[in-house]
């Protein structure tokens, strides 16, 4: 199958080295067993620093699988993956933890805030694992809470927050160690349209004001259109790639 044209990247980003560089990625489950199952059949993907990329595709097409590999939660079965120049394939578990901690911020569809732990403590968690001292953690967490408009909810626990508020805390948590890359797997999937709008605006802010590279999976075509580049996945392959508006919508 013909690979989509990958040269169509923003001029500003092209000067630097790619942040994500995936070549001929294959992911297979149940290796060596009779029910061996190849989910990704050779993905090539380059994401430049400062890009805002959307991945779309029908359910089961392999979007989350790609995302998990990009996020160093999983290793490719075959192919190469360089994240900011680091070979993820050959990294040890300890190194993968450190990569996830410092280079990547995850935002999940189901928020995945730690229960019985305040919003502030949730945000401090990645910094805790990074070995940042308590005082610095606390002040950074407060800063981030204010940034996502949750400054007055620092002491609230997840079960005291609405879905949209949880997702904002989750985004603040993803930003805790100031990672270069934000990965969001259907971040608005559990939210109503107005709340989705707010969350999407937050991503736009982080992209525009903080220069974050963002890869976002969404089932919402309107939100996908707001990204700079839209990749379509089908049955484990990237079947289409096109430019988006890159401008936040008003819906």
């Amino acid at each position: 199958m013909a690979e989509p044209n990958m040269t169509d990247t923003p001029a500003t980003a092209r000067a630097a080295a790619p942040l994500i560089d995936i070549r001929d990625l294959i992911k297979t489950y149940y290796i060596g067993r009779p029910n061996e199952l190849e989910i990704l059949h050779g993905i090539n993907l380059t994401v430049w620093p400062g890009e805002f990329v959307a991945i779309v595709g029908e359910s089961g097409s392999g979007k989350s699988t790609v995302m998990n590999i990009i996020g160093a939660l999983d290793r490719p079965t075959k192919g190469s993956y360089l994240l900011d120049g680091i070979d993820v394939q050959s990294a040890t578990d300890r190194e993968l933890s450190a990569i996830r901690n410092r280079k990547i911020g995850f935002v999940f569809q189901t928020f995945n805030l730690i229960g019985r732990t305040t919003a502030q403590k949730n945000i401090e968690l990645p910094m805790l694992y990074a070995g940042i001292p308590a005082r610095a953690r606390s002040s950074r967490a407060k800063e981030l809470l204010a940034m996502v408009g949750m400054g007055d909810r620092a002491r609230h626990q997840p079960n005291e927050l609405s879905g949209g508020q949880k997702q904002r805390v989750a985004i603040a948590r993803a930003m805790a160690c100031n990672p270069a890359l934000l990965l969001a797997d259907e971040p608005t999937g559990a939210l109503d349209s107005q709340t989705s709008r707010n969350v999407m605006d937050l991503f736009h802010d982080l992209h525009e004001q903080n220069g974050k590279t963002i890869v976002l999976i969404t089932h919402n075509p309107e939100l996908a259109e707001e990204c700079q580049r839209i990749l379509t996945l089908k049955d484990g392959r990237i079947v289409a790639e096109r430019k988006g508006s890159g401008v936040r919508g008003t819906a």
Partner: protein
Amino acid sequence: MLQSGKEVVCVGLLDNIHMAFASLWANKMRAILTMLGIIIGIGSVIAIVTVGDSLTGSISDSMQSLGVSNITVSLTEKSSDDSSATTTTTTGRGVSIRMFGPSQPADEDLITDDMIADYRTAFGDEITAISLTETMGSGTVPVANSSDSASVNITGVNLDYQTAESIDVTNGRFINQNDLDGTKKVCVVADQFVSAVFGEGVDGIGKSFDVTVNNKVYTFYIVGVYQYEADGTVALTSSDVTYPMYVPLTTAKKLDSAAAGYQSFTVVGSAVENNAAFMQNTEDFFDSYYTRNQSWTVSASSMETMVSTVTEMISTVQVAIAAIAAISLLVGGIGVMNIMMVSITERTREIGTRKALGAPGFAIRLQFIVESVVICLIGGVIGIIVGIALGTVGANLLGYAAKPSLVAIVASVGFSMAIGVFFGYYPASKAAKLDPIEALRYE
């Protein structure tokens, strides 16, 4: 950049403890039920150690006051193995069949004054004192100008008794040879007895009083007053105290119409360090008098040996209870392990999230080990409190002051932490090894 520093361990410890408490608080009932095994285990250890230590402590205290080096020489029945053999083979010839329980030696079996005199000659310098006694039992003395009465415990004693039992005569004199020869009705009484009967500040010497023993009334003259030291037993009021009262041995024997011999007497050796050999030689010496006696022989024992027998008994009980406690702790530990497995399964998504946020395996392991240690430590502390409470009640019931053992408490804290680490390690490692994606997908 990729260094994932061990400093995380230190930085995260407080947060881990905080998280552990939060998660236990969320499942209070479950946590308490889980702790039960640890509470029972640690509690019973502390309780039994407290009771045991109070007991041995009090025994060795009273041992100090009684004089450790005193040797008691007493008639004992020959070993039951011999006698049962004799019984079965010679019943027909009218040999007395001994039933269960101690029997009394006949008058001709008793240790005689002659034997004791020979013994004194044979050992000479090795003997500091030989104290002979005849117990007359307790008597009552009417208090002057009152309807009350004081109680006394009357013992007939010889001259050496004062040395052997360290009687501190503060006024007058002790029983002397003249009293013994003349079977005089004189006595040495406690200072507090004098105050109780004759009033505060009265000089008791030369005073006489009537004492009723076994419905007979005797009149005794006070020749000496000794300083009374209450022993461990608790008296609620002074009228409950029974004061020891000493009279001449010969007088006691005569009033009691007792046989001339003794069932036992006390020897003070001149060299405490040779007591063991001295006791053996004493037994050997008296054995020669009793070789042909079918049922009685003489044995020597000291407070030391008695105390060590009691202490051994206590430690046997302690070992038995420690074994039960160990089983309880093992079961408790397994309970903790079980609840940790449940907790980790419940929190699989949380573990996945933490891993996605960059938690290295050891941080996850530490988090759950801390939680397990916190459960065990809380259980241990509750156990220590319960144990001290029970031990104090137990020691008080036995009439001793409770002495909670600091060593046992510190050891219990350490041990419950060790249980936490030991039984928490496997579940925590399981959590640490979870695949992040599997964990995040967990429903």
